[in-house]
C-alpha cells in the first residue's frame, strides 16, 4: 500500500508546475504633464445639457466652461452617446462634468 501511495503521490511530481504568483507586485507612475481632474460619480446630481440645432461640442464647451478647447472633456464624459465628436444631434442629453 505504501508503494502505491508513493506512485500516486503528486507532491514531488516535477511535471506539475504552479503558476508564478504576482499578487505582491508593486506599481507606480508619474508624468511631466499635469494630472487631469478625476471624473466624479455624482450621476444623480450631474449637470446635463440638451443639444439644440446649431450646437457643436466646442460651442457647448465655450458656453459651459468659457473655453472651447475643453470640448474633449464633454466628449470623454459622453463617449457612450457620442460616436463621432463631429456629429451631435439635437435632443441629445449630454453630461456636463465639472471643468
Amino acid at each position: 500500500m505504501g508503494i502505491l501511495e508513493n506512485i500516486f503521490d503528486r507532491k514531488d511530481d516535477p511535471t506539475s508546475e504552479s503558476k508564478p504568483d504576482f499578487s505582491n507586485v508593486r506599481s507606480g507612475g508619474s508624468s511631466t504633464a499635469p494630472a487631469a481632474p478625476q471624473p466624479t460619480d455624482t450621476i444623480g446630481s450631474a449637470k446635463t445639457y440638451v443639444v439644440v440645432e446649431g450646437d457643436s461640442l466646442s460651442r457647448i464647451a465655450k458656453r459651459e466652461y468659457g473655453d472651447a478647447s475643453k470640448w474633449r472633456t464633454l466628449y470623454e464624459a459622453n463617449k457612450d452617446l457620442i460616436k463621432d465628436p463631429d456629429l451631435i444631434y439635437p435632443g441629445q442629453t449630454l453630461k456636463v462634468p465639472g471643468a
Partner: protein
Amino acid sequence: MHSRLFGTSILALTIVAVLSAACTKSSETPGSTGTTGTSVGVRVSQIDMGRSLTADKTINDKTDSFKPTDTIYASVATENSAATATLKARWTYQDGQVVNESTQMIAPTGDARTEFHISKPDGWPTGKYKLEVFLNGSSTITRDFAVER
C-alpha cells in the same frame, strides 16, 4: 418667337430655382452641427524601458532584459495636447497572467513623458513579459522584454 424665348427663359429659371432649393435642403443634415475642435489629438510616439529614470522621466539606461531584483520602468512619450488623456499600462507574463495594470489621467499641454514602474519584493520569475500601453482605451504600442538570472 419672343414669347417662346421668354417662356423658355422662365422655365429655365424655374428649374434652376427648384434645383437650388433642393441642394440647400439636402445639405441640411440634422446631425452635423459644426466643428468640435482640433483634428490632431494626443498620440503615443515612443516607449522606452530600463532600470532607472532621469529627472524628466526618460530612461537612464535603456534595456529589454532585466534581473529578477530590478524595478522595471517604462517611459511613454506622448505628443500634442488634450484636456484629458488616459494612459494605461498592462504588464503580462508569458503564461498570459496579468502582472499589473495601472492608469494615469493626464492633461498634456504639449510633448510629455509619463512613466510606469513595477517591482516585486521576492523577485521576478524569469521568462518573457509584455508591456501594452493604451491611450483612451485603445492599444498603442506593445513592448516585449525578458527577466533573466
